[in-house]
Structure formats: structure tokens, C-alpha cells
């Protein structure tokens, strides 16, 4: 069983501070949806409003079509996984997992059986009688998931549950979480500030800043077609030019900057002077020969070898720092430090974008 969630014009104020500003989103049943944003962007507030610990100042939250106003957390079909997991240290693992069943008056034998079953599901058999303190970080993680699944929620809410794990385990748990979500079919709402996590796991991502949802799209569109400068910067690196939009044809605009005049895709609502052009480092070309369009001449300052790619930091003749990333597959020649090079980019791979929305 899973349920969809609709947020309609949801706002949340703490005193005079507006933590969440007119959030509108419709999450499908069985979807893996992530809210991505820096700390303080309001994503945790959204999660706590869905789980019922905070009431929205205005707007409505519906779960499975039912308005949740006035429903306490213990009356909602949601299960929250806390950032610090909040396992109960004084209970053995199986009691932790079956706590939700205990409060529903399920008998001991049945609870125990259900706990064992869930421990198998999260790949942790035989841990039933251990105490929380005997488990490793990743194991605790699984117990927290099992405990939430035990109450058969229609919606699982996850508040940065992987942030305390080390890198390898984090990557492993990403795949694991995704697999559990697919297996159970429960709607997952995931909160994170880690763009890699959000892009890798989610069906759709909502990028947030200053209490507003800036863009809702699938991970590919978020990365390739960000709607504004905030989204472009938050989900990846960019070379950024500031300039004025000129003549536009077929969605490609002329863009004049102190570093030259370029042609690039024109994003919605990006007009006039003082807007920004975003080019991803991996879309920035670098070669000894002058490219056909959007050519910028410069000098290589630093070459840093990152393993799967090589980052080349250059300074243009006009004094701007640029970064280009080359894949480490031998397909392109790596310039030396101090080399004179031409950089450029494909007009369709670069976008002129407005700044983030902050006001209603």
C-alpha cells in the first residue's frame, strides 16, 4: 500500500521567519521523491509537516487524498526515519522493530515473527536479540528502516538518514534504500543536502532554497535543464559569465559579456542586463585550436588529476577563472600548465538563467 501526497500552497512560519513559502507539489503513490537543498532551506520543515510534528501556517497537506489537518503523527499513515535514527537503546532490536505493532496491541509471538521477517528484508537476519549499541552504523540504519516498515506505512519519510555514514557505506545504502523502496512499493520522501544522493536515488527531485521549491523534475532534467542559477549551482559545478541578453532566435540568444559575446540557450524568465550564463565544466571544451563558436582564449594555470576525470583550471585573457573537465579515457590531449589554449562550449549545452526565486 502506498499513498500519494499533495502539498497545496503550504507555508510555515516560525515567528516572522518563513521557513516554507507556498510549497506546491504532488507526489505520486510509490514514487521516490527527494527534497534537495542546503541546510536551512526548509526541507526538514516540509518533512515534519507531512509527518505531523509541525502544523502548516497555511495551505493544506493531503495524504492519499485525505486532508491531514489536525491529525497527530500517531494518526498518520506515515513513518519517519530520523536523521539520528532515534532507535530505542533500552530495547533489543526485535522490540525496536515491533514497537509500532506493540502499540497496536499485536501479540508477542506475532510481533517477534514480523520482526524476524523484516530483519530478513533489510538483510540483517539473526540480529533480533542484539542491543542497539552492538550494531554498526549501517546496521542501525537497516533497523531504523525495518522499524518504520513494520507499521506498514503508506509513506516513508527519511530525514538525511545516510549523513552519518562513511562514503562507501553511504553509496551501498543508497542502492539498498532504492531496492527496498522498489520491493515494498511504498512512497519514499527523502530529504538530503547531498545532490549525488538525490540524483542517484530519486524518481523526481524538488530543489529547495529559502523556503521555496525552485524546481521539480527528474534527476536528468534537474542537472541538464536547471530552471535557474540556484539549481544550476547547487546540483553541480559551473563556469559563470555575467552579461546582457541580446537578439534571440530559436531559443538561442546572443549574450554579451566583458569576456566576449557568446551564444547560448535562453532560459525562461532570463532577460535584460546583468543575468548569468552557466556552462558545466564537462561541457567546456579545451583545445589548442580555436573552436567554431563561443571561443575564449586563455592560459592553463593548474591541472588536477581526479581519477576518473582531469580538471583543468585556466584563466582567460580577460582575467576570468574557468574550469574544464576532461574524461580520463585518452580521448583528448591533456594540456600542460602554462599552455596557451582555446576554450569553448556548445550553445545548446550552456544556459542563460535567472537568479533563484525568493519572493512570492
Amino acid at each position, binding site marked *: 500500500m502506498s499513498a500519494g501526497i499533495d502539498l497545496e500552497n503550504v507555508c510555515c512560519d516560525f515567528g516572522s521567519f518563513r521557513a516554507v513559502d507556498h510549497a506546491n507539489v504532488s507526489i505520486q503513490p510509490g514514487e521516490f521523491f527527494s527534497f534537495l537543498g542546503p541546510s536551512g532551506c526548509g526541507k526538514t520543515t516540509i518533512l515534519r509537516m507531512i*509527518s*505531523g*510534528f509541525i502544523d502548516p501556517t497555511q495551505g493544506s497537506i493531503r495524504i492519499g487524498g485525505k486532508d491531514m489537518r489536525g491529525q*497527530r*503523527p*500517531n*494518526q498518520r499513515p*506515515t*513513518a*519517519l526515519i*530520523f*536523521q*539520528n535514527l*532515534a*532507535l*530505542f537503546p*533500552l*530495547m533489543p532490536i526485535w522490540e525496536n522493530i515491533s*514497537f*509500532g505493532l*506493540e*502499540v*497496536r496491541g499485536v501479540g508477542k509471538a506475532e510481533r517477534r515473527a514480523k520482526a524476524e521477517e523484516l530483519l530478513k528484508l533489510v538483510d540483517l537476519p539473526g540480529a533480533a536479540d542484539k542491543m542497539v549499541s552492538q550494531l554498526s552504523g549501517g546496521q542501525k540504519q537497516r533497523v531504523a528502516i525495518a*522499524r*518504520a516498515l*513494520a*507499521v506498514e506505512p503508506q509513506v516513508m519519510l527519511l530525514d538525511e538518514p545516510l549523513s552519518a555514514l562513511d562514503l562507501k557505506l553511504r553509496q551501498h545504502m543508497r542502492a539498498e534504500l532504492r531496492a527496498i523502496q522498489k520491493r515494498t512499493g511504498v512512497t519514499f520522501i527523502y530529504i538530503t543536502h547531498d545532490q549525488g544522493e538525490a540524483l542517484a536515488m530519486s524518481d523526481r527531485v524538488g530543489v529547495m532554497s529559502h523556503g521555496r521549491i525552485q524546481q521539480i523534475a527528474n534527476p536528468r532534467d534537474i542537472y541538464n535543464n536547471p530552471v535557474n542559477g540556484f539549481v544550476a549551482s547547487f546540483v553541480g559545478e559551473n563556469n559563470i559569465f555575467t552579461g546582457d541578453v541580446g537578439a534571440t532566435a530559436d531559443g538561442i540568444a546572443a549574450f554579451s559579456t566583458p569576456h566576449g559575446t557568446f551564444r547560448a540557450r535562453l532560459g525562461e524568465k532570463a532577460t535584460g542586463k546583468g543575468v548569468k550564463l552557466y556552462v558545466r565544466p564537462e561541457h567546456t571544451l579545451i583545445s589548442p585550436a580555436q573552436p567554431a563558436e563561443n571561443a575564449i582564449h586563455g592560459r592553463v594555470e593548474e591541472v588536477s588529476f581526479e581519477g576518473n576525470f582531469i580538471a583543468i583550471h585556466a584563466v582567460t585573457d580577460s582575467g576570468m577563472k574557468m574550469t574544464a573537465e576532461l574524461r580520463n579515457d585518452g580521448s583528448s590531449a591533456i594540456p600542460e600548465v602554462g599552455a596557451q589554449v582555446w576554450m569553448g562550449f556548445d550553445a545548446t549545452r550552456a544556459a542563460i538563467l535567472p537568479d533563484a526565486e525568493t519572493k512570492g
Partner: protein
Amino acid sequence: MQDLLRRYGAGLTTIICLLVFFWLAILVVIPNITLFESSFRPYLPVTEVGGPKDVYSFDNYLKVFGGEVEVSPLGFTFLIPVHVLTFFLTMWYSVVVTVLCFAIAYPMAYYMSKIANPRSVPTLVLLIFVPLWVSEVLRAFAWWIILAFKGPLNSLLLALGLIEAPVRWITDYDAVVIGLIYTYVLFMLFPVYNAISSLDTNQIEAAEDLGAPWWKIHWRIVLPHAKPGVASGSVMVFMLSAGSLLVPSILGSTTSQWFTQTINQWFNDALDWNTASAYAFLLLFLCTVFVALAMWAFKVKLSDIAK
């Protein structure tokens, strides 16, 4: 010790150690040993002290079994030595005080640590502490006045229409229990408050999120976590209540007798320090046994309390 020397130098360290030694040896150990030793000796005229009659025995301790009275609780009538009865009543009402202190302190502690705005907690603590600035004797007398038959409490309740005739508060052990609760409730409040404060609020929220009603959250999450605090608070309140002399003396009625009052009578009225010492050690020993049994029954470890 090394640390102490490095921090304060040889001179100051010697002074600190001597002061601690003086405190422990002269003010604690030696008086107790003296009383302990004399508790086994008979009370004799000065001329006979050290004489042939001055021998060690358990006679002083066995005096608690003298002088039986008839009691009939719950319809059963039996004879019981009057001092043993006093002892059991002291134990019983100390337990009552402890339980009531817990019943009062737990909601307060929970409110202070989890519900109240953290910024208002210092004010709350101050408000709780202010009455402690007044001497214990004055506070006990204040309760004596408040609880008097024609006192302010009865006037208030009559004026509010909550009672139709004045209530006799200072009767049997009622006023003693009220006074002891008032005097010792903070010894319960603060350990419980500390214990609950250290509970991660997320655990309460997690339990609620999993569907637990409020009482289940307290029973399964908050109380087990607060158990060491409750245990140390209970031990303190119980021991202090059982050992209190002032409150039972001031707020006691004609039908109440606290075991400490009996000890006091041996000391000050009978001037028999030997028997008084025996009674005092008996109280100490039996209270310790009782507390140990209670800790065993509630599965509390000594290390939990020492935290």
C-alpha cells in the same frame, strides 16, 4: 594525586588533604565508631562505667521488642512491640512520601525538560528554589499554620465551597507526609529532571510517529530512560524522610510517632545514649537493607544511581 600536586603545589595540597582527613576522620568516622561501640554497652551510672557490668551485648538492640501494643489493621488484631510498630509506620509513610514525591516530580520534570521553553527553565528552577532560602524549621512551622484547623487552607477551601466543614489536617501522619513531601520533593525533581533532559527528544517523536499514545511513550520510552534518576531520587527522598526528625516533631499529631523521635527520646529524654545509638544504627541498617531490596526488585544497579 599527581594532578593535585601539579595544580596546587605541595603546600596547598597538604592543606587540602588535611582538611579532607579532618572532615572524614574527626567529624564522620570517629563519632560514628564511638556511637557504634557504645551501642553495645549498657547505660550505667558513671561510677560503674568500666566496671564488671560494662560488657558488650545486644541488649540495647533487643529493647525494640519490649512493650507490646495491640493493633488491628484491615480487621486483623495482633500484638506488636511498640517500637517495631513505630519502625514499620516510619518505613510505610516514607514509602508513601517517596511515591507521592515521584508522582509530583515526574510531570514537573517532564514539563521542564521537554515541554517548557528552554529559556524559561532557569526562571522555573529559581521559583522552585526560592522557598528553600527559608529555614527548614520555619517552613515546617509555616505548614503547621497553613494546615491548622482554623488556618488559611481550611478558610480558603471553605470560601471556595470545596468543603463544607473544616478538615482536621494535622491528624495521624497526614501533616507529616505533607511536610515531608514539601521538604524533599526537590531531591526527586532534580535527578528525574536531569535524567529526562538527557533523553533524545527524537525518541519521543519516533515513538509517537510509530503510533504510540502518550501513556505508552512514557511507559516504554521516557520512564525506562529516567529510571536511574527516579531510583536515585527515590533513595534520597526515602532515606531523608525516614531520617527526618524536624518535620515529624513539628507536624506530627498525638497519634503519630516517627522512629527518629523514638531515638531522640532515648538521647534527650532518657539520656540513654547507648540505647539511642543502638536504635540509630538499627534504623540505618534496616533502611539500607530495605533500599537494597527495593533496588533489587526494580532491577536498579548501584552504578545507575551513582551516575
